[in-house]
């Protein structure tokens, strides 16, 4: 099959399944705020949205896309605009294609002619694309664009394509002066005429004495090998007309399938081009604000995540201030080291930057798996099959269920699909019951995550849980489970008046309950309401 393959290298099976819970992911990570930077066309934004929630699941594809991305970024004002114009032309031809044969009164000969015409328009567009790629081929550095170029040129220059265009044009020519159709007919079940193949449209009649008979009967011995019925009985005229019509409609349907194939190719190409254009736009906007981005690298064998200068892109877009005008309250850059088996347990007061930290990590992961640059100075991470976010639901959708039951039921669903490769982001989970009980549940749940071996970042108010990670880890070790909880805290300093000064940095540290007890209480009151 003919595919543009700008998103996935040929031979690597593309992931086409949206991540489970991806709608929740988009909401929890504020991804809409990021995608809203794409203002040019709704179609482009939709495409980006689709690829964000349908991530690449192998490093080969990620690096492949990074390559194409770089070409698009570099050629955004030249080649990209050109190819975008070309692929957009498909939509017009698609409209004509859908119109073929819709006017019922047109006879079948005319319908075939229309189909030939539309097919030729697609062929012409394919030739146009080919020339565009040919003339830009020296500027491409990415495997994706180079192989697309080679593929298109190879087909357009091939003998098959030439013969195909000749056959199509031949049909159009001979239809005007046709004197005979030569059809291979086979009888089937119940000795009834069943299938027919159109062999030739001829501008001469087919007669026994002529060239035709020589073609068919090698020995010319038996007169019965060519039976000619000159006076066709009235009773069979309709049946013959019907066969004629069927074989011509069949030609039309093959032409339609051909057109649909090229149309689909251009449609796919349009989608893929749109994705890169959209991504280039987002990154352009963030760098305009003075923020750093980097091309991430993939950890192949270890489930880890390390980052320097990681920040929450959605927050930057929400503020929309240039970097030099930002205060340290606005955006915070965090460093992060998550080794294999680590589950980060982050405790600390409200408004301490915990949720922002979760988002920053989630967004970077998602963008990496799109094949795009990420908001950080450096980012190195393993591939997640699922980025799962468990954030508090705003409202209690199901009254009979209760809040705790609701959030636990969501987790149960998650456990039905997440694997050791998943990235789990828990935001204030189990806060809908007492801290004591919440902590008991948290132990069970995180133990289960540890068994799975997935990466977890757990932002929590559960002091009882967070302060007993030593015991928890010892228990895991005793059971032979490879995993450990690692405590992180929001870096805060208590002022003399009892108020808290935050740095918004997330750093390794021991959970502190007393200092912020008041804020904890308030948080629970709010969460349980």
């Amino acid at each position, binding site marked *: *099959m003919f595919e543009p393959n700008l998103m996935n290298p040929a031979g690597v099976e593309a992931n086409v399944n949206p991540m489970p819970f991806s709608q929740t992911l988009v909401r929890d990570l504020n991804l809409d705020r990021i995608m809203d930077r794409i203002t040019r066309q709704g179609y482009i934004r939709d495409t980006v949205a689709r690829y964000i929630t349908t991530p690449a699941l192998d490093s080969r594809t990620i690096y492949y896309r990074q390559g194409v991305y770089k070409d698009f970024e570099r050629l955004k004002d030249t080649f990209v605009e050109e190819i975008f114009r070309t692929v957009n032309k498909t939509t017009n031809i698609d409209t004509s294609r859908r119109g073929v044969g819709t006017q019922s009164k047109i006879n079948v000969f005319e319908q075939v002619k229309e189909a030939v015409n539309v097919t030729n328009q697609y062929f012409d567009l394919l030739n146009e694309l080919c020339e565009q790629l040919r003339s830009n081929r020296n500027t491409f550095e990415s495997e994706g664009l180079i192989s697309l170029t080679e593929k298109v040129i190879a087909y357009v220059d091939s003998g098959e*394509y030439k*013969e*195909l265009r000749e*056959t199509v044009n031949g049909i159009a020519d001979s239809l005007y002066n046709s*004197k*005979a159709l*030569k*059809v*291979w*007919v*086979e*009888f089937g*079940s*119940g000795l*009834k*005429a*069943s*299938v*027919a*193949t*159109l*062999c030739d449209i001829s501008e001469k*009649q*087919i007669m026994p004495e002529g060239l035709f008979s020589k073609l*068919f*009967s090698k020995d010319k011995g038996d007169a019965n090998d*060519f*039976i*000619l*019925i000159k006076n*066709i009985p009235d*009773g*069979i005229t309709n*049946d013959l007309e*019907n*066969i004629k019509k*069927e*074989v011509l*409609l069949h*030609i039309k349907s*093959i032409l339609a399938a*051909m057109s*649909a*194939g*090229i149309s689909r190719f251009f449609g796919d190409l349009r989608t893929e081009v749109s994705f890169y254009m959209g991504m280039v736009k987002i990154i352009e906007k963030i760098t305009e604000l003075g923020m750093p981005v980097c091309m991430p690298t993939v950890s192949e064998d270890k489930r880890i995540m390390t980052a320097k200068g990681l920040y929450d892109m959605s927050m930057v877009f929400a503020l929309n201030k240039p970097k030099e005008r930002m205060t340290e309250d606005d955006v915070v850059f965090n460093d992060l080291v998550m080794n294999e088996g680590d589950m980060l347990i982050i405790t600390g007061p409200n408004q301490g930057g915990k949720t922002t930290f979760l988002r920053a990590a989630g967004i970077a992961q998602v963008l990496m798996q799109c094949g795009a640059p990420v908001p950080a100075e450096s980012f190195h991470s393993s591939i997640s099959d699922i980025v799962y976010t468990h954030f508090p639901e705003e409202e209690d959708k199901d009254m009979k269920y*209760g809040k705790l*039951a609701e959030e*636990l039921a969501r*987790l*149960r669903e998650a*456990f*039905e699909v997440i694997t050791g490769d998943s990235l789990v982001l828990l935001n204030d989970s189990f806060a809908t019951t007492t801290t004591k*009980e*919440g902590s*008991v549940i948290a132990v069970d*749940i995180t133990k*289960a995550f540890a*068994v*799975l071996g997935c990466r977890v970042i757990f932002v929590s108010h559960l002091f009882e849980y967070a302060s007993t990670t030593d015991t928890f880890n010892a228990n895991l070790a005793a059971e032979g489970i490879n995993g450990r909880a690692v405590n992180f805290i929001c870096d805060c300093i208590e002022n003399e008046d009892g108020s808290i000064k935050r740095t918004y940095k997330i750093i390794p540290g021991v959970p502190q309950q007393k200092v912020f007890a008041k804020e904890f209480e308030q948080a629970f009151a709010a969460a349980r309401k």
Partner: protein
Amino acid sequence: MADYLSIIWPDDKYRTEWEERVGQEFSGSIKRDLNAERIVNAVFARTKKDKDKLERLFYYPLRDADPIAFRLEVMQDIRTIPALFEILSEFSKAIPEIRDTYAKSLENRNPEQDAARVLEAACMYISTANFFYDSTKDLDIKSRALIRMRKHFEDVVSSDSFKEMSETALKLQADLKDASSFFMALNSGPSSLGIVRGTFNVDDSITGKLVKNADILFRNVQKTNCSIYNSVPTTALEVQLIDCFKKQKPEVFSRLADFRVKYADYPFTEDGITEYEFEFYLAYISFVRQLEERGFVFCVPRISQNNEERVFGVYDLGLAQEVFEQGGNSTRVVGNDFQITQDERVLIITGPNQGGKTTFARSVGLFQVLAQVGCLVAAREASFMIMDKMLSQFPERENVGGNKGRLSEEIIRIAEMLRGVTKDSFIIFNESFASARRADGAELGRQLIKILLDIGCKVLFVTHLYELSQELDEDPNFEGVVSFMAEAVETEDGSGRRTYKIIRKTSTGLVFAMDIAKRTGVTYGQIQKLLQERKILPVKEASK
């Protein structure tokens, strides 16, 4: 005499008896009260033919051990021999095809076309008979029905007449195909028609060239030919063309005529082999498999030899189907155990509203019905007694508001129902006398239960009148009564929370939050089990 080949009746006398009974008895209680309709609709959702016939099998259960066992044997075979399901479904698809093809040979269109249908039916029959015997001969089949069928086809395919027919038919089929393929020249201005013998090469045709050279562009495989089939039995064109074929290949057509003369009366369709009998098993097993994928369990019930019924983990199949349709799995449906013995014949079920009482009653009733239809049942393990009647008394839905005449109507209906009841009958009462004052209701209940005990029938008595269970359980005059309760546990806020378990005693409560964790399935043990089911964690030997 032809073999008797039914796979749902061991002997024709059972079928005759059953058919007499159908239509006389009212099946409403099974259909409506037990919600069997939902099951039956789900089982036969994709069935196109004979739906009524199949449904009747469910609404009128069997009363004899022999045919029940006969069917259960087939169910058991299909479950234990993985290949059998495909074999039977393929075989059952062929049955109507052969029959329909043969029937077309009798339409008297023209001699050649009619003869071709006989040949076709013969070829289909040959391959179907060979297929059935070849694919089942090495299988460890235990059911009487399938052994009988296999023996029949063994006799058929090893007979000389069958062998001779096979040889003739297959050769003729190939020659006829060749004789009826040709080039058609459609000339116009002036019109003429040529019928030309020759060698066809698809790559030389227009469509062949298009399909070959545009191969890379197609998303779907494109055919190089098109269908010109018409639904008319025969057309003038076909007659004309066949005449030409006869001139071109006279010898083939004379063999075709001979074949028809010789085999027109061959029994291509056996009496007693009907696709609907296969559909009974295949549709039900498909239904079971779908639910099994979501964790629901089924078993082949055993017919009790000691006049006792013991069932473990029975659940409401109607509810299971509902959960299935909503995309859920077995964790949302609770299974229960129960038994009926000489000492425990009248089971009184009490408990809070919405506690699972009615669901339990349905699950027991459906269990009984399906077992007696000869089907797998929704339980982990089960033995059952054969009941002569299955009756139920559920509140009339249209009368929910309650009116003055309702109680007396209800009493009359119950009295009428009791007339045909024997010690081998099974009755489910669901919230009887709910419209009466509590004291009256309890008294009526007491009287009714006394009567039921005297008859000796098996009863499930679901009621909100818990005093009945408290009083009768201990009363020596009411021997045979046993009490069950839909379980409820205390919650933090003092409201009862339901587990939907039917138990003999009230259990103690759990910590509130952990209880919810348990209910939603997120305790470590439950997740561990889930991960084992997902084959992410190895199953430990200790956990069963």
